[in-house]
Structures are given as structure tokens and as C-alpha cells.
């Protein structure tokens, strides 16, 4: 459980870092597309991670 929370926190921090990096770059059209991709990747990873940890706990 603790490992799950640590990995989740690290993943969220990584996403925040990437978002900050993207927002610093000029060219808003591409930035939006990158942000949509990052958001999708983040949520898919969160659900896959939860699935993995739930399966490993059983």
C-alpha cells in the first residue's frame, strides 16, 4: 500500500514537472496536444498501476 502511494506520488510529480516544462515552451497549439497526451498517459498509468498493485496484493 505504501509502495503504491509512493509510486503514485512520484508519477504525479513527474507529470507536474512535464506539464511545467511543456508550458514554458512557446507555441500553445502543440502544447495543448502534448498536454492532452500527457493527461491520457497519466490516467492510463494510474489505472494500470492500481490494477497491478491490487493483483499483487491478492
Amino acid at each position, binding site marked *: 500500500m505504501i509502495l503504491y502511494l509512493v509510486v503514485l506520488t512520484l508519477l504525479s510529480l513527474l507529470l507536474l514537472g512535464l506539464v511545467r516544462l511543456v508550458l514554458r515552451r512557446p507555441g500553445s497549439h502543440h502544447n495543448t496536444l502534448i498536454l492532452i497526451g500527457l493527461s*491520457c498517459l497519466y490516467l492510463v498509468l494510474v489505472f494500470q498501476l492500481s490494477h497491478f498493485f*491490487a493483483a499483487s496484493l491478492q
Partner: protein
Amino acid sequence: MTLSLLLAFTRQDFVDRYSGSAFGALWAFIHPLVMIFIFTVIFANVMGARLPGVSSVYSYSIYLVAGLLPWLAFANTLTRSASVFLDKRHIISKVHIGLPYLPIYIVLSETLTFLISLAIFMVFLLLSGTVPGKTLLLVPFIFLSQQILAFALGLLLGILNVFLRDIKEMVTVLLTFWFWLTPIVWVPSIAPQWVQYLQDYFNPAYQFIHAYQAIFAYGQLPDFAGLTRLVILAHVVLLGAWLLFKALEKDIRDFI
């Protein structure tokens, strides 16, 4: 539009909703409280409705509220976003603001309402002794996924509503159908196998509603494959809405 302006819009929206009423923002607490109370009294105590395979007296009431609260957040976000550009035309025509930000303040406002309702629901779960365990950690992510879908669909319909005013009314009608086609009031196991298959693959609302019901009513983990499909679909719709918006932005401003 900056974050502070977005928050100011959200705050104003919340204030406007209850302005002039004697109880003010207290109504935000009264509505879910009354809803949970009525469902508990009618379904658990009067009708004696139970959920198959769950022993709790309040199992069906919890199942119903666990599906209704996220549905209301989703449906309200969608309905209000569909007309946001026309509702805020007095601002859009005077100040140059990023149009996609307007549905975002609706998402934030509905999130606030959902959080208040969820807090009251959690108190009810505590009192009835049916608090879900660690699976609660997934709720923010499920809510985020459903609201991304609501925002994407809202943006898409909001754009179309500028050119065709019937869209807003159509959304209201379609949401009524969508509500009854989604297992919120009824249990999926009573439907034939092919209906369950259709729900699983063609009803994105089923994925998040089912996830909340699994967590709150059954104390189980949600279907992760279904949630992954929901996330991907939500982002595909968001991408489509964004591209349509970029293509039509000038026309939208001209029409408004």
C-alpha cells in the same frame, strides 16, 4: 485567462446559484442531504430493496446514490457546457478570453458541488457502517476521467450549439435517455447478456458509474480495463473537440 480569473468565475458561478436565497450556500448541502435521506427512507425502509449478494440494509440506497452523484456532476457539466458560449456572449463579445476556459469553470463548479455531496454521502456511509476501504483512493482518478469526458463532450456540443441552437435541447433529451440506459437505478445483472456487452463497450458512462458502485456498494475494485477504455475515449473526444475548436474559433467569435 489566468488561474485566478478561472477561480473567480467558479466562485461567482457558485454565488450566483444561491444569490438572493435566505439559506445561501447552505442549499448546496441541503439538496444532497435530502436526496440521500429520501432514498434511504423509501428504498431501504419502506420498499425494503436490497442489492443481490450484499447483506447491508442500505445496500440499494448506497448503490443508487453512488451512481447518482457522479451522474449529476457529469450531466450538469455537459448540459451547462453545451450553452456556455451563448450564455457568456456578453463577456466574449467585450473581452478577448480563451473560449475553452469557459467550460472549465463549469467543470470546477460542478466538482465543488460533487465534493460537498460526496462529503455528506461519506457521513451517511460512516453512520451506516459501510465505509469502503483503500479503494476510495481511486475515486479522484475516476472523477477526473469522467469530468475530462464531460468537458470534452461539453466543448464539442458548446461549439455546435453556437451554430445550431437546438443542440442544447437535444442534449437535455439525450441525457434523459442516457440516464435510463445506464445502470444507475437498475442493476446490470437483470439485463440480458448482450445488453451488458453493449454497456461494457459502448456506454462510457457505465464505466465510471460501475466503478463508483463497485467501490461504494460492493466494496470491490473497479474494472480497470473498462476505466482504461474510458480514459482513452475521453482523450480522443477531447482531441477531436480541440481540433474542431481550432478550426472554427474565428467563426464562433463572429457568430457570437
